[in-house]
C-alpha cells in the first residue's frame, strides 16, 4: 500500500468518523428552528476586541434590524451586537443527542453559552444551524451511498459469478438483462422506479427504500465486470486442477475465484460510493428522497432551486462543497488502488 493510499484512507476515515459522531461535533440540534434568525450569515470567530487580543476566540450575537427597516436582502438585516462577547468553549453541554443511536448525552466538542449562538456556516431559512445540519445530513447521504454500493456489489457479483462460471445460456440471458439496465439513462430509470413507490414515508423507511432502489439499478455494471473476470479465471490451471481433484463449485468459487475478484470489487466500491452519494443527493434535491425536517445534503441543497436564495446566501452551498470533497477523496482512492 503506497503512501498516497494511506493518506487518502486516513482522510476518509477521519471525515467519516466526524460524520459518525455528528452529535458530538455539531454544536446545535439539526432540527431546532430559530424564527428570529433566518438566513443568518456565518458567525465570525474573533480574537480581538476593544480590550486587545484574546487567546480564546469569542463570537458576537447577531441582531436583526427592526421590522421597519427590513430589506429583502437578509444579509443586510444582520449586525453584530458588540455589547456582549460569548467565548468559545470546549466540551459544553447543549442539546441532547444519542451517540451511535444508543447512549444519550449532551456534551458537544465546542459551543458557546446562551443566548450566544455559534453557527459556523450560518443558518438556513428556518434559522437552523447549517453546520450541524451538514454533519447530520452527511450521516444519511454517505450511509446511503455506502449501503447502495454494498447492495449493488453483492447483487452484481452474485449474478456476475453465476453468469461467468456457468456460461452458456445462463450467461447469455443474464447478460441480456444487464444490457437492459446499462442501456437506460439511470436518472430516468431512478425517477421511474421512485414514482411507483410511496412518496411520504418515515426517514428510516425512505432511507432503506432509496438505497434499495439505487443499488438495484446499479448492479449491472459490477455484474459485467465480475462476469468478465470469472470467465477468464475459470480456465486457469489452478482452477482446472482443483476441479480435477473433485473440488465442488462452491469450494472453487470461495477458495480460488472470490479472492481474485476481491481487489476489483474494492476499486469498484470506491468508484461507486461517491456516485451513489450523488444519486441520493440528486433524488433528495428533487424532493423524492428523505423528507424534511431530517437533513440530507440533497434536501439541504433543494432550497437553492430558487435563484434568489442561490445567489444571496453562499453559505448554503456548504453541502455541495462537502459532496465535492467526499467525491474527490473517494475517486482519488480508487485511482490510487487501481495504480497499486
Amino acid at each position, binding site marked *: 500500500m503506497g503512501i498516497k493510499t494511506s493518506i487518502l484512507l486516513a482522510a476518509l476515515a477521519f471525515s467519516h468518523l466526524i460524520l459518525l459522531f455528528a452529535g458530538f461535533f455539531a454544536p446545535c440540534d439539526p432540527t431546532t428552528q430559530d424564527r428570529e434568525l433566518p438566513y443568518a450569515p456565518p458567525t465570525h470567530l474573533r480574537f480581538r476586541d476593544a480590550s486587545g487580543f484574546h487567546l480564546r476566540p469569542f463570537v458576537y450575537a447577531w441582531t436583526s434590524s427592526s421590522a421597519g427597516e427590513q430589506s429583502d436582502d437578509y444579509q443586510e438585516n444582520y449586525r453584530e451586537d458588540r455589547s456582549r462577547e460569548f467565548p468559545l468553549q470546549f466540551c459544553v453541554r447543549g442539546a441532547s443527542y444519542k451517540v451511535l443511536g444508543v447512549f444519550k448525552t449532551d456534551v458537544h466538542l465546542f459551543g458557546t453559552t446562551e443566548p450566544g449562538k455559534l453557527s459556523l456556516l450560518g443558518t438556513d431559512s428556518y434559522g437552523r444551524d447549517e453546520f450541524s445540519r451538514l454533519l447530520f445530513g452527511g450521516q444519511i447521504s454517505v450511509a446511503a451511498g455506502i449501503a447502495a454500493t454494498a447492495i449493488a456489489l453483492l447483487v452484481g457479483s452474485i449474478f456476475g459469478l453465476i453468469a461467468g462460471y456457468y456460461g452458456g445460456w445462463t450467461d447469455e440471458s443474464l447478460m441480456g438483462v444487464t444490457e437492459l439496465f446499462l442501456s437506460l439513462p439511470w436518472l430516468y430509470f431512478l425517477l421511474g422506479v421512485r414514482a411507483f413507490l410511496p412518496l411520504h414515508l418515515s426517514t428510516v423507511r425512505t432511507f432503506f427504500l432509496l438505497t434499495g432502489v439505487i443499488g438495484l439499478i446499479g448492479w449491472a455494471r459490477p455484474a459485467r465486470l465480475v462476469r468478465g473476470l470469472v470467465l477468464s479465471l475459470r480456465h486457469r490451471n489452478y482452477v482446472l486442477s482443483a476441479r480435477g481433484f473433485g473440488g465442488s463449485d462452491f469450494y472453487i468459487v470461495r477458495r480460488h475465484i472470490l479472492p481474485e475478484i476481491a481487489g476489483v470489487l474494492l476499486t469498484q466500491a470506491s468508484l461507486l460510493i461517491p456516485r451513489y452519494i450523488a444519486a441520493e443527493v440528486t433524488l433528495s434535491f428533487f424532493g423524492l428522497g428523505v423528507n424534511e425536517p431530517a437533513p440530507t445534503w440533497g434536501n439541504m441543497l433543494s432550497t437553492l432551486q430558487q*435563484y434568489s436564495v442561490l445567489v444571496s446566501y453562499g453559505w448554503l452551498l456548504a453541502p455541495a462543497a462537502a459532496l465535492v470533497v467526499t467525491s474527490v477523496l473517494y475517486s482519488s482512492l480508487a485511482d490510487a488502488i487501481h495504480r497499486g
Partner: protein
Amino acid sequence: MSYIARRLMRAILLLLGVSALCFLFTEMAPGSFFDEMRLNPQISPATIAALRSRYGLDQPLVVRYERWIKAALHADLGHSIAYNTPVAPLLWSRAKNTLLLSTTALFLTWLISVPLGLWTGARPGGQVDRLVTLVSSLLISVPELVIAMALLAIAVRWHFLRVGGMMSADFGDLSAWEKLSDLLLHLALPVFILVLCETAVIVRHVRASVLEVLQARYVQAALGYGTSRTRLLVRHVLPVAANPAISLLGFSLAGLLSGSLMVEVVCGWPGLGPLILEATLARDLYLVIGGIMFSALFMVGGNLVADAMLFALDPRIRGEGNGADGH
C-alpha cells in the same frame, strides 16, 4: 445487411424489455394516484372505481401490458391522469426541447473531444496532456449536480446568460433575429454544463484509443516511410481510433440523457426532465412510463445511428457482415 438487421432486432427487444420492466414495477407499487382521492369524502368510491376502470387500472398486469403494447404500436402511450390528455403529444412537445438541448450538447462535445483527444494522445506527457488529464479527472469526480449549481450561481450572480425557461417573457414581441439570439442565450448555460461534464469523459476515451492505435505496427511502418505527423494522425490513426469512440457514442447517450434531465430541472429548461419529475411527484403512471419509453427510444435511436456509422466507416464490419465483436 444482416448486421444492421440484427442491431434493429436488438433495439426492439430492448424497448420491449424496458416497457415490461416498467409494468412490473407498477405492479409492485403500493400506492396510486387515486389514494388521495379516496381520502376526499366528496368523491364516492363508485366514481373512483369508474375512473380506475377507465384508465384500465382494475385489470390484471398482463392484460394491461398487452393493451398498452397494442396502443403503443399506434403511437398511443395512454392517458395522463393529472393532465387529463393523451400522453404522447404531451411528451413530444417537451421531448423536442430535450432533443434540442442534448443534440447540441452532443455535437459540441464531440467537436471538442476528438481534436483534443487526438492532440493529447499524440503527445502523452506533454503540457496540454497533463492539463487536460488533470481538469478532466477533476470534472469526472465532481458530481454533475454540483457543477450545474455552481455554474448556475455564477450565471445568475453576474448576469452572464439568460437563465430560467427557454425564452424571455417578451419573446412574442421580438423580431425573428432577436428570437433566435434569445433562444441561444437561454440554451447556452445548460449546453455548457452538459458539454463540460461529457467532454471530460469522452476526451479520456478518445485519448486512450489514440494511444493504443499509435502502438500498432502499421503506424510504425507509416512513420518509417516518412509520413508527416499530421497526415499520420488524420489519415491513419483517426479512422481506426474512431471505432471504439463511435461505439462509445451509444453508451455516452445514457449519461447525456441523465445529465440533461438533471440540468433541465436545475436550469428550468422545459424539456422532458421537469415534466417527468412532476409526473413522479403526482404519481401520474402512464406519463412516467411514457417518459421512460421516450428516453429509451432516444437511447436506442442513438445507438442505431452509432451502429450505422460504424457500418459505414469500418470495412471490417461490412466485410464480415457480422458485428458481434464490433467493439
